[in-house]
């Protein structure tokens, strides 16, 4: 299967200030799994920009993204009917297993967890989705089980990390999956380890090739007592939280 696709924008919306939802269809992309990502060609830029898949059905991919720089600015200006060139599917996947799973998302990190939650629920796995945002206006609409905001403008006040112990205590997960800014991920992985709960984390790094060849996106893993390099783009973005050298 070839991995370069030309899609058509089916829908694009600013869902919150500077946060967009874009849907694009492509006849050549038939399947993409939760955890895998797409990398979008942005006019005038050298490097494609990686985005997690928030949903996929009928050859149509949904991406939720936050405007940060030139690439996301370009994508945010696309209109329905515009062409969009991207590589997909890239990266590895979350493990889909019938386990009581706690999903921890912070900010735009909730995006890949939407698709994962759907896949887990399809196989009958029980999920609890906890999400943290800076403020009420940043909340991405979804049927979350728990919400915190740093300023307390909606839901529980504080960082999602402040509530992790309590949520684990009450939900008693067999597994934790998280996508969030680095400090949150680290905290979640270390807390999971303390409770001896398996934990998968979705990591981010600036990428060039997206297929493991340029070695631009490596992180360190410790496996069997040895430290080794792993690429976020191909070996990841999903890693066993216990193996990541934080």
């Amino acid at each position: 299967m070839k991995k370069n696709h030309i899609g058509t924008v089916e829908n694009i919306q600013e869902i919150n200030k500077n946060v967009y939802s874009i849907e694009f269809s492509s006849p050549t992309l038939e399947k993409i799994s939760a955890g895998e990502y797409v990398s979008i060609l942005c006019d005038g830029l050298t490097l494609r920009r990686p985005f997690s898949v928030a949903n996929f059905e009928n050859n149509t991919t949904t991406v939720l993204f936050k405007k940060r720089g030139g690439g996301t600015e370009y994508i945010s200006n696309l209109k329905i009917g515009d062409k969009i060139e991207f590589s997909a599917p890239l990266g590895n996947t979350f493990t889909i297993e019938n386990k009581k799973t706690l999903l921890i998302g912070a900010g735009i990190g909730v995006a890949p967890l939407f698709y994962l939650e759907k896949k887990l629920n399809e196989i009958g796995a029980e999920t609890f989705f906890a999400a943290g945002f800076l403020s009420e206006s940043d909340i991405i609409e979804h049927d979350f089980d728990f919400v915190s905001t740093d300023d307390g403008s909606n839901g529980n006040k504080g960082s999602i990390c402040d509530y992790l112990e309590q949520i684990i205590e009450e939900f008693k997960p067999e597994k934790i999956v998280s996508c969030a800014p680095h400090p949150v991920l680290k905290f979640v992985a270390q807390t999971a380890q303390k409770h001896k709960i398996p934990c998968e984390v979705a990591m981010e790094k600036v990428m060039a090739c997206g297929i493991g060849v340029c070695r631009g996106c490596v992180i360190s893993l410790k496996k069997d007592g040895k430290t080794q390099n792993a690429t976020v783009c191909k070996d990841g973005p999903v890693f066993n939280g216990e193996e990541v050298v934080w």
Partner: protein
Amino acid sequence: MVDLSLKIKDFDLKNPIITASGTYGYNNEFDDFCEVNKLGAVVTKGITLEPRLGNEGERIFETYGGMINRIGLENVGIQAFLDEKLPVLQKCNINFILNIAGNTVEDYIKLAKIAQENDIKAIELNVSCPNVKCGCIEFGVNKQALYELVSIVRKNYDNCLIVKLSPNVTSAEDLATAVQSAGADAVSAINTVRGMGVKLDFINGGFKKTTVSGGLSGKAIKPVALSFIDRISKVIDIPIIAIGGICTLADVLEFFSVGAKAVQIGTANFTHPDIAEKLINDLEKFMLENNFSTLDDLQKKIQKS
């Protein structure tokens, strides 16, 4: 029918489109995007005697029309290359050039001998990696050191020997001449241009500065490469393989016009992972439509322009 093939010493290439070291992996990694065995050749990631983990910290920084990298030559080392990567190249029928890098003359000699023993048809010496400390950069900037290095590698390697030059030098002509006198079969140029990216964030009333210093590549360096090749082609006769920001057929033809016989595609593979195959098709179509039957015809005609 048009004939896109060329020969550098005894090394046959189906066409002049080659993919550049460090941007295409070791063998068939781009198969999901390109028919890799249709390429003139793939230059492998730079290989050292021992495996290398590369640099700590951020390794990539996008800039206007390009990117800066400071990978630090992360690679599997020659033994793993022979055991794991070479069999795939052979099985998939991929024409390749082994790119090698060393810290000492001894390293290069050993690597050249290993290449010879394994009957590897072409090697490219990286004497100019800008982001390995105390490393090979010294050879690439000093004409005497470069002459000695290439001469001794030549003694240990009989097949096609290509030397890759750095643009971060004062006299391109002197270095190219040294490489030719030392017996190299071809020169490739340019490696990345030394550069630095700075990102300033203004947070809570203070500045947070992030910098990435390394090698600049991509469209932005094309004029540097054109000038470099234009200058060296006036002083050497061995074939020149052009590298630097090549993305389109027009770029390829421009490099032919200043004396290149073949080209390497680097950073553009990241922007358009199917670019190498597309360039072969574009070149073939151009030649067909304009009645050039061989690459040599085309290059001679362009060079007269």
